[in-house]
């Protein structure tokens, strides 16, 4: 059964990748780190990259499910 997810990039990560996001369909179960390897195969994930699934922080081993919105971004610098 195919799983479709949406991936979003923010801030310096969005700039360095040159795009705001990706979509990905896959068959076998993937976690956050594995999604990165699929959508950004040419580049290792920058150190300190944060990940969120459906707007909640997750670690890199978190499984990604059908319909999820997965976001990657650098450390936050608001305030």
């Amino acid at each position, binding site marked *: 059964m195919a799983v479709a997810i949406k991936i*979003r990039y923010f801030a310096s990560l969005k700039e360095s990748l040159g795009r705001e996001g990706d979509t990905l369909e896959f068959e076998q179960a993937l976690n956050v780190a594995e999604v990165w390897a699929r959508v950004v195969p040419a580049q290792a994930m920058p150190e300190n990259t944060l990940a969120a699934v459906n*707007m909640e*922080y997750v670690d890199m081993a978190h499984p990604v499910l059908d319909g999820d919105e997965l976001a990657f971004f*650098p*450390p*936050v*610098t*608001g*305030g």
Partner: protein
Amino acid sequence: MIKIVPAEFDPFAEVQAYQAQQAALAGKYGATNLFIGTMRDFNAGDKVKGMTLEHYPGMTEKQLERVVTEAEQRWAMLDSLVIHRVGDVYPDDVLVLVAIWSVHRGDAFDASRFIMEELKSKVPFWKKEILVDDNSRWVAKNSDGYL
């Protein structure tokens, strides 16, 4: 109340207006603490002429709500108002306001500081600075406010 605003705002007018609307607060609060973060015209040794504040619509609000709820669980807060600016900002513009109303001062001080530290370390906002030579750079990391 939590607000993400794309235009300049006056933190004092916001607090006055909010407080005036909260009839339940009248006579009940002994302490109000306001923290206001304002854009400086310098950072890390360089002059800065502007900044863009990016956020993650949806997640930013969700994480801010979580931070305020956590503060409410830890301290006896009567009410709070948190406003954060996004978009293009300039020196002297207000970036963030955290206002807390409580019966006693310790709660207002503690909750304000907690919310600011959590906001700075966990809520998705990102600053890109525009230097006076028109070069721009992303701010890499917020400092710890206790140091």
